[in-house]
């Protein structure tokens, strides 16, 4: 009898705790999608991704047809919260943003940094910040400790990425300072970039910090992180200018994901530092 009472108390307490822990779930109003987003509800919102961007968008190793990763899981959670349906459309990274601008896809959600240049063409909802990391061979043979050390160094960055632009900018600085310019290689996918460093075709590869750390952690005998740059880049979802309803849905959903802790959990799940989270905001240029 006594134990039964304790059991009951435990169950009740557990239920209360669970309810308290997920208060934000109540704020998601998927059932109201019909009135809130009359033009979006029932449609498959096409999200452009390049699932070769670990740990943001990546193929599920158990089922290559399925797309997982931090960005992909965030997208699913956000869309579930606002009661809309999504469809991932996968393509090469350099083709993603053009497809959104052309209206072929509705949004790009694939580790996209906010830049003023891009914001002329698309609107953003940002939700985390990025660090940039330099992947170098084990032992850092070229002793690269900051961007300033990269003059005359064979540098690799993704095609059309901000890192690619960063090397171009650094190269100009090098030349201005009377040093050698940077012989730069652009790769189409991350794995291709990793092979450049692995095969001694590049001395450094600049990409997302979390990815660099993961690669160094997974391949301790091959790679290490040369240096990190807290670039302050904001990472977000981009939609074509004028898609106010979609922008609103994304803003609402992301706010809820931050309020109920989903974003933090997902950051942790994919080995990302939870402190990378920033308060979500909608950015229009």
């Amino acid at each position, binding site marked *: 009898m006594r134990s039964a009472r304790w059991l009951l108390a435990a169950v009740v307490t557990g239920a209360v705790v669970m309810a308290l822990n997920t208060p934000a779930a109540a704020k998601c109003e998927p059932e109201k999608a019909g009135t809130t987003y009359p033009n979006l509800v029932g449609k498959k919102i096409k999200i*452009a991704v390049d*699932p*070769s*961007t*670990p740990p943001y968008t*990546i*193929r599920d*190793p*158990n*089922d*290559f*047809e399925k797309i*997982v990763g931090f960005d992909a899981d965030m997208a699913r959670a956000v869309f579930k919260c606002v009661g809309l349906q999504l469809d991932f*459309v*996968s*393509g*090469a990274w*350099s*083709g993603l943003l*053009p*497809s959104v*601008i*052309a*209206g*072929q*896809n509705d949004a790009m959600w694939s580790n996209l940094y906010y830049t003023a240049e891009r914001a002329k063409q698309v609107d953003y909802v940002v939700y985390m910040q990025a660090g940039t990391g330099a992947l170098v061979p084990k032992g850092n043979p070229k002793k690269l400790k900051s961007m300033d050390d990269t003059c005359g160094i064979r540098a690799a960055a993704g095609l059309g990425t901000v890192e690619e632009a960063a090397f171009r900018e650094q190269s100009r600085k090098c030349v201005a300072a009377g040093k050698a310019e940077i012989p730069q290689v652009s790769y*189409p*996918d*991350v*794995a*291709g970039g*990793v*092979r450049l460093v*692995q*095969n001694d075709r590049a001395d450094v590869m600049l990409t997302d910090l979390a990815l660099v750390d993961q*690669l160094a*952690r*997974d*391949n301790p*005998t*091959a*790679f290490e992180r040369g240096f990190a740059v807290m670039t302050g880049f904001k990472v977000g979802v981009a939609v074509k200018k004028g898609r106010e309803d979609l922008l609103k849905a994304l803003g609402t959903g992301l706010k809820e994901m931050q309020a109920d802790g989903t974003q933090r959990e997902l950051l942790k799940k994919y080995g990302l530092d939870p402190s990378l989270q920033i308060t979500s905001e909608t950015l229009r240029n």
Partner: protein
Amino acid sequence: MMTVGCGNPSGGSGVPGRSLEDLSAGKRVTGDQGGAAPTATSAVLQGLREMVLYIGSPFLLRGTLLALQIASLAMVGGLVLGLVLALMRLSSFLPVRGIAWLYIWFVRGTPQLLQLVFLYDALPMIGIKLDTFATAVIGFALNEAAFSAEIIRGGILSVNRTQAVAAAAFGMGPFLTLRRIILPQAMRAILPGMANDTIAMIKLTSLASVIFVNELTFRSQQIVSQNFKFFTVFAAAGAIYLILTTVISAIQALLERHFNLELERAATTRSVLARLLGVGRRSQPSATPELENLGAVREPANVVEAIGGPVRRVVSGPLPAHDAVPGHTNGADGAPFVVCEDVCKAYGAREVLRGITLSVRRGEVVTIMGPSGSGKSTLLRLINHLDRLDRGEITVGGGLVGYERIGAALRPVRHLAKARAEARIGMVFQHFNLFDHLTALQNVIEAPIRVYGEPHAAAVERGMTLLSSVGLAHHAHHLPHRLSGGQQQRVAIARALAISPRLMLFDEPTSALDPELVGDVLSVIRRLADTGMTMIVVTHEVRFARDVADRVVFMDNGLIVEEGGPAEVLGAPKQPRTQQFLRLVEREIGTF
């Protein structure tokens, strides 16, 4: 291969089935296996096993299927558009030529990747929104069209022009000629290039990943970016491509064999191809024994019987009997049938015909003689409108051939091929101009079936009769290149007779033959003359002219120098030019 890049062979099970947690094992790009390292052999075996797993993985196979779908649809579209562009490039009309040239110039000159991005991302601005698959198919088809246009044009140009001239002489229109005569012969030159393009396109579909086409290369890259096993995954993708392109190469080999005239086509090859492509053979001797029998049974005694006798009964349907006068030998009935009035023709600045006036009566046999360059062949070509008159007019059977009268002037009609067909003028060329890809019988029945719409069986029956009459029934199923020159020319005569001509034109029919073959051909022509066929024969054979002709016309330098009965012109020429020429011919040929 045994060092880096294969990942850790012992980590991860290959294709599917690895959780994110043990992803790290597979991600070890430099395998430092330490003491537990497997031997090199087992590492290789493990790698091969993984590769085979990837080759069979549905994920990659779906990408393969997509690549194939895009490539095959785009190839069909590209071929059709390419053929149109090739024909435009060959047009005599400058703007048409120019448009095709511009298109090819632009499409060949710009990167295909940019074309795809443009179609996918720029067209929506003007309201044309194509989905990923449609963009890829259209993009590759538009690109392929530019390349295949040049390959097809090259193929068409590789076919001897005489083939088209022969087709035109039998009233075949430009498109019928293209389809039945030119393209089948051009295929040999076209096929290798097209196979190249097909293979290139299958591989190039990977470009389309930028417009969200998830084909084979893209998918393999995606797997690699997930597990970093580039060696096994890319090797698997490479193997799949190799399998696809091997199939294409095999199809190419079979098709090339099919279009190779030099190869004696064995029945087995044919049936393999037929089974593979569902293509039937043109005519199979073994499959038509009744034809052989027909030839044997119905072999007429001579060409007179074949043309003047049974032909009238054999010919049925839309083919009327020719206007020869049966039983009427070597003479004319007086009514003018071919009338040339002041015919002039110049090629550029060179005047070839300078005012020819000549009439040929029904049933008359006229031989035209004269030195090379005197305009004899040109006159024949003007009579059946293979060339256009500059001045004057020619009527055959009272009607113009392919001209309409606008006031005093003549203007070519639009449907020239139809006009030629209606004129029913049979022509025999110096170099035979048989259709090289068709058997003797097929050469004979081509125009009756395709131009005059005669039923196939009737045309074959009549074709066999005609071939028998020129002594070639047993060669009916041989391609021209297997026949001697004399045999080819006799087939050519049978082909001309098959359209039931009202008039036969012979353009130096024996000039290209060895001396011992001349006799056979001349005897056929002689027997034909005996049937009362109206004939104009350009020849240097003086004895033939003397024996067969009702009238001999001697031409020189674009004018008729002398004409009259053979005894007059050949026996007692009045004009010094004629005398000189005849002396020369006698000395050289010695047939007099």
